[in-house]
């Protein structure tokens, strides 16, 4: 079969930049093929996607070298619109991609622009809505849809065009684990049903490999490092070298001393063969792995009892929530979008007023305090650092909270400098915020909260959209704050984060807490996983295959091993 897209010795340099972003790209994709592209931030995968869908060079100007052809025609001789007839892109932010006022209008968007007339317009929209299973929501506004539904609308909006190639830019970034799993399944079904080529750009490798992928391309520094099958890839060391997270079961197998080779079919947890020898090694490792040392802390810092809250007076967004948080804990709050996780933190910080229940902080009634007073004890860090930064200079940004509290300039200087040192921002103290990377900006927002010396910080999705290196950087930083005695509460969809860094996790569903336990238990409990839209860790499946009965304990030891042995 012929190639849809073909890169030959391709390179690209943005006009605004002095050196090229892509070098020596040789890559092609055929109809019906499914390819995953992964790599650390800044490796050039976004630019590669822009080259494929025509935004480069038509929206982002620059100089192309070599050849990039779409059905044997050079893309630079086509137009953006001609390319978009063949290549459909589902953007990472499905909220922003939703340009219609309702689902039906959004799906119809491309048809409208093509001047498709009635009754074909309505017919085609309902056909496509059925294909992506959103037909019952045609007159819904985006605000009435869940993240997964919005993504299906985006997909529908692209599929109306009968494209030959579908590109998904980080499809899992804004979804909870279970919805993410369903998204991967839907993509797989669509590619089988329609025979289109599929490119998925995503750094959550393990989650994408949940369904069959023909090839995985790893990029680094603007070049393609490897282009091979999942089985070959996980058998090599490329992932670790290039800062892409290895699937957990592969890590566990490697720790156990198993030589991972392609003939074990290790590309997916569903196919990997665990024979007698592998089982023996895994069991042996399990029995000798260190047990986690559990910190036993005494005092409760926060004691929340029977908290209820409703936005509209009808549906309870929080329903009888009771949690106790110990000083120095690192707590993960998990659950699907709309389960009440963010609402909980908003009520706690005083952004919203509780309807019923009590919040005690160090034994005192917390609900009597204002937003500002609560912030002296509990700091809240928003997901997107751009939502918080309002000053030009880093120093001023961090000093903001102190200045508004009327602290003297001398003390401000001292405290800001101290905080900048703790947060690793000392070298940048005289820099403007705009010169920082996303991860560094995140640090600035954390610093601007830490400067108020709260005992607790709450972070909303601290690592969303970050590659493995930045993820590790941010999380290690939080964990170092935690070691200084700060209690850290993290709202997250990331199961890895929760397993690796949290001591405890609280699962929300429909405004209630359905589980409050150590992470290894939560992530091996079928019922909780289902109800809170989580995803089972692949370690659980690995245990089943190896005949290890106590999967929870295995997971526990795996975490302890990673914390104590690997990360040091």
């Amino acid at each position, binding site marked *: 079969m012929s190639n849809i897209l073909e890169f030959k010795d391709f390179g690209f340099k943005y006009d605004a930049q002095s050196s090229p972003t892509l070098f020596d790209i040789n890559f092609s994709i055929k109809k019906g093929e499914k390819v995953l592209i992964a790599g650390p931030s800044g490796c050039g995968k976004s630019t590669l996607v822009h080259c494929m869908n025509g*935004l480069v060079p038509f*929206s982002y100007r620059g100089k192309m070298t070599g050849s990039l052809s779409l059905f044997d025609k050079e893309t630079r001789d086509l137009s953006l619109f001609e390319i*978009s007839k063949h290549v459909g892109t589902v953007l990472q932010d499905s909220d922003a991609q939703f340009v219609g006022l309702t689902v039906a*209008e959004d799906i119809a968007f491309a048809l409208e*622009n*093509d*001047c498709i007339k009635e009754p074909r317009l309505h017919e085609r929209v309902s056909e496509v809505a059925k294909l992506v299973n959103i037909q019952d929501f045609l007159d819904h506004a985006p605000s009435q849809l869940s993240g997964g539904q919005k993504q299906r609308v985006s997909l529908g909006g692209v599929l109306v065009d009968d494209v030959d190639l579908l590109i998904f830019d980080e499809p899992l970034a804004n979804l909870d684990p279970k919805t993410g799993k369903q998204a991967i399944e839907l993509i797989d079904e669509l590619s089988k049903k329609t025979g289109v080529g599929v490119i998925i750009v995503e750094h959550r490798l393990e989650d994408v490999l949940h369904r069959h992928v023909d090839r995985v391309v790893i990029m680094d520094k603007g070049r393609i490092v490897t282009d091979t099958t999942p089985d070959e890839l996980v058998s090599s060391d490329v992932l670790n070298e290039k800062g892409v997270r290895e699937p957990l079961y592969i890590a566990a197998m490697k720790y156990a001393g198993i030589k991972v080779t392609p003939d074990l079919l290790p590309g997916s947890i569903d196919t990997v063969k665990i024979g007698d020898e592998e089982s023996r090694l895994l069991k042996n490792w399990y029995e000798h792995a260190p047990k986690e040392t559990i910190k036993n802390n005494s005092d409760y810092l926060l004691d929340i009892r029977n908290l209820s809250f409703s936005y509209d007076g009808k549906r309870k967004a929080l329903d009888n929530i009771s949690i106790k948080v110990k000083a120095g804990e690192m707590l993960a709050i998990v659950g699907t979008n709309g389960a009440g996780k963010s609402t909980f933190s908003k009520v706690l910080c005083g952004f919203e007023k509780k309807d019923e229940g009590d919040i005690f902080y160090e034994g005192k009634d917390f609900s009597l305090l204002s937003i500002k007073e609560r912030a002296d004890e509990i*700091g809240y860090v928003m997901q997107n650092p751009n939502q918080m930064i309002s000053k030009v200079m880093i120093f001023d940004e961090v000093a903001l909270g102190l200045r508004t509290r009327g602290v003297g300039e001398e003390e401000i200087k001292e405290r800001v400098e101290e905080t900048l040192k703790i947060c690793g921002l000392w070298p940048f103290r005289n820099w403007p915020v705009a010169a920082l990377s996303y991860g560094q900006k995140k640090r600035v927002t954390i610093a601007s909260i830490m400067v108020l010396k709260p005992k607790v910080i709450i972070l909303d999705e601290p690592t969303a959209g970050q590659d493995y290196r930045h993820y590790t950087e941010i999380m290690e930083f939080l964990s170092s704050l935690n070691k200084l005695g700060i209690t850290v509460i993290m709202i997250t969809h990331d199961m890895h984060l929760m397993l690796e860094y949290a001591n405890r996790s609280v699962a929300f569903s429909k405004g209630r807490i359905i589980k409050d336990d150590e992470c290894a238990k939560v992530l091996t409990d079928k019922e909780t996983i289902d109800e809170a839209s989580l995803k089972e860790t692949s370690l659980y499946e690995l245990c089943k295959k190896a005949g290890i009965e106590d999967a929870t304990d295995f997971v526990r030891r795996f975490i302890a091993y990673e914390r104590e042995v690997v990360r040091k």
Partner: protein
Amino acid sequence: MTNLFNYIDRKSKVHDLTGATKFVCLLLWSFAAMYTYDTRFLLALTALSLILFPLSKIRVKDVSFMLGFTAVFMILNNVLVYLFSPQHGTEIYGTCTYLFGLTGKYAPTKEQLFYHLNYFLKYLASIPVVILFVSTTNPSEFAASLNKLGVKYSIAYSVALALRYIPDVQKEYDEISKAQQARGIEMSKKATLINRIKSAASILIPLILTSMDRVEIVSNAMELRGFGKNKKRTWYMGRPFKASDVCAMVFCVLLVVIAALLNIINKSRFYNPFV
């Protein structure tokens, strides 16, 4: 459906008109109401606009917020007119009949009060129509029909697009504002005006920056799906013009004609019962 426009989805004759028809009617109707001060005409127009409510199956309860809002504005406007030119009625009608035995600049005159009555009626005749327009017009369909009337589709679509993203921006504003308050930015009345302006900046800057990011993504998303490719586009929510649309527009043109005729008959924009 986004509720800034407060579109209320019901089945009625008024809902059935295309958005552009309603928009044209609104313009003609308000022009007629603003054009003349003829009390009889304004009374008739007010009565007509009130009849339109049951006809469009919109209840007062549905629009009470907007009504209240405009009522406050209307009263304020009248008070200000009185404060700045208490003799305006006398100038217009050419007579001066003091009431309650009072005299002086601010003393009430029959003429002034009659002028205010007319002023009031102008509001009463036109505001219900504006409210009806917003509550019976589906924004997408409005964009579609504007385009049919010859407005460029990129401009027509931006109406729909603004409505699409305004709730998102509102939500973001709320979140940013709360997080900044937590850092000690005082937004309440306790702060001085200058401080409040400064505080507003610390919310607006992040809001603008995040919105700019969004603009880039949205425009990419639209271009990737062919927006701007052709000179024309079709509309999923578009509806053909029907006989009733023509009737409605003709009717409103007649209103303007009547207003103009009245101005000629009255020899001025004012109907003068004092001479």
